[in-house]
């Protein structure tokens, strides 16, 4: 069992979960993920690791409460335990001195881009972070991100902070930097990864995206996470999760992510309500 050290909603519907997982905390590198199971009957779901403390043996994940399993994770309280935390899985994000790197995060990716940006900064890169949200009240960890970057830029769809719009504004942001960007790294939902890659393609900037397909075991055994990159099928769990955003078959990935959309909500409609009502 893995103990919950901290669990709270940091902005509406986005939750931070700090877990005791010393084996993972000792080995993790930026860009890797864990697979969690919220309870005995639970699904195995992959979540990017957003921070860790090797000494204290803890890891932190950020999740969007979007389906039945994340709903259970979101309702955890400190002191409780969950049956599975396994990792660190996947390959770490490539960290080199590239020059100037643009790190883009949206939703839970605002959290998972943090350790990547931190490592890039430590490697001597100039690190510019763009965070994106529907509205300003959905930003979190801004101080932490500001601290480890050279510049923090906001995009909101409603214009309540920074640039108004979506990642389509990135080319003009890059223009305004008045310096070449050597690499773009994007973490967040699949649409953000896709649109981000779409706008950097004409600019010819190498763009690395952290994919988040459906997974079960996370060790290459089941193959449900397969994605087409270039001409070949890759397993995101062992070949990724980072891939060249200009090579990913986005239509296929978006379609595969929808496989269980209907089933996702069925547990909401069953006896769990009674179960919860019984508890309180």
């Amino acid at each position, binding site marked *: 069992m893995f103990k919950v050290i901290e669990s709270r909603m940091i902005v509406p519907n986005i939750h931070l979960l700090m877990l005791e997982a010393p*084996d*993972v905390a000792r*080995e993790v590198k930026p860009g890797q993920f864990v697979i969690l*199971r919220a309870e005995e*009957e*639970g*699904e*195995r779901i992959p979540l990017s690791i957003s921070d860790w403390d090797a000494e204290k043996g803890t890891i932190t994940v950020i999740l969007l409460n979007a389906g*039945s*399993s994340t709903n259970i994770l979101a309702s955890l309280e400190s002191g409780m335990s969950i*049956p*599975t*935390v*396994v*990792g*660190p*899985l996947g390959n770490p994000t490539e960290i080199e001195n590239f020059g100037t790197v643009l790190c883009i995060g949206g939703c839970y990716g605002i959290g998972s881009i943090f350790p990547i940006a931190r490592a890039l900064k430590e490697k001597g890169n100039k690190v510019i972070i763009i965070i994106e949200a529907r509205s300003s009240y959905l930003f979190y960890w801004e101080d932490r991100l500001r601290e480890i970057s050279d510049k923090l830029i906001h995009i909101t769809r409603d214009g309540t902070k920074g640039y108004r719009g979506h990642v389509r504004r990135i080319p003009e942001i890059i223009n305004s930097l008045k310096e070449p960007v050597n690499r773009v790294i994007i973490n967040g939902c699949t649409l953000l990864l896709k649109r981000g890659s779409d706008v950097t393609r004409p600019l010819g900037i190498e763009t690395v995206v952290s994919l988040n397909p459906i997974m*079960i*075991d996370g*060790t*290459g*055994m*089941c*193959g*449900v996470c*397969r*994605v*087409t990159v270039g001409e070949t*099928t890759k*397993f995101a769990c*062992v070949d990724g999760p980072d891939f060249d955003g200009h090579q990913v078959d986005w*239509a*296929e990935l978006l*379609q*595969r992510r*929808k*496989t*269980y959309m209907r*089933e*996702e909500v*069925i*547990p909401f409609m*069953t006896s769990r309500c009674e179960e919860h009502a019984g508890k309180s």
Partner: protein
Amino acid sequence: MSEKKRKKLDLNRREMPKQPPEVRRYNFDEVALGYSAETAVEEAKRCLQCNKPKCVLKCPVEIDIPGFIQCIAERDFAAGVRILKEKNCLPAICGRVCPQEEQCEEACILAKKDAPSAIGRLERFLADWEAEQSELEMPEIPPLTGRKVAVIGGGPAGLTVAGDLIKLGHKVTIFEALHKMGGVLIYGIPEFRLPKAIVSREVDYLRKLGVEIITDFVVGKTRTIDSLLDEFDAVFIGSGAGLPWFMDIPGENLNGVYSANEYLTRMNLMKGYLFPQYHTPIKNHKSVAVIGGGNVAMDSARTAMRLGAETRIIYRRSRQELPARLEEVENAEEEGIIFYFLTLPIRYIGDKNGWIKEIECLRMELGEPDDSGRRRPIPIEGSEFTLPMDAAICAIGNSPNPLIAAATPGLETGKWGNVVADEETGKTSKERVWAGGDVVTGAATVILAMGAGRKAARSIHEYLTSL
């Protein structure tokens, strides 16, 4: 012996009762129900008690087969269990999933008359009899040697190594990547063929013997082999077959196309058939095609059928070449699985939402024998046809899991990413590291993995006692 020689041959191989097909195709309960004590004794009495038993030579773990059968004939079941467990720590499992017809039972003298002694059923009977007794007999464990062994993977190979070495007084820790022990016995083989309670029972037995079990731990990721070697005197790799193969044909990434690993893992490990009580979803498909002809294909097809799908097995050779156990093929046929022999899928066709709706196939004919000795299937030109289908399960094999090899310098691997290990000892190219089972051979059987585990355990023990 003279009395035995006079004994008239009894060619009436006793049948094992099964759930009737029209009932079992709607449930996940075990298909075969096992012998009663009476039937077991009758069947055991058929054994000729050969002086030079050929069956033992064909058993990968060298069980004293006539020995335990004699005990059953004499109704001394406890003694039978002891003989069985001397060589096989997982008899309830082997009695169910071993391909006896090509091992011990094939070698049986009675097989010449088409009625081999039902060795597998008798093994199963003894193991199940033992489970019903309130007191489990525990072997005596010698004083601790102070040596420590890390076993990677909680499947058949790893369980055997752990069982053998703990009984020799070594300290054993198993590291399992998934959240449940058992490997393919848990994630792969369905409940109706191997109830999971049986696997748990065997794992509990090892735990009682003192084996330490750590789940949710991916060696190669959570910790490297080199790091384990700092703490342990020896390491055994039994991480199994990992990466599922696909056919590399168009449309394979459409929604509704699964690897057998995914489909079976959803169903067995994650208990998808109990969704939403268990949260891992599974679709209730109407029409499912399973590609392949092995045991995994039979398991996938029979699982899909139990979820209500009209299910077809598409296999490129003929019935005669099916690699699956005959018993499982017959079970599948009885349950109403439709077989398309000499058929090769060449393309999956999707609907506008990216879901599979049809499979395009080619008819095949058999040509000259190939390397495997089976007649090579050859496509018949212009024989394309399509089958409407809302799911396809690809069950054509796996390569060994690459995670460990990738993270272990000095560990030699072969063409398929398999760990190279000596056939007799399980020794790898890396000092103090042994390997066995599917990670070495590619996807094979439970009993072969156990046999490899047995040999590796012997070699590890030799090494540990030489220190």
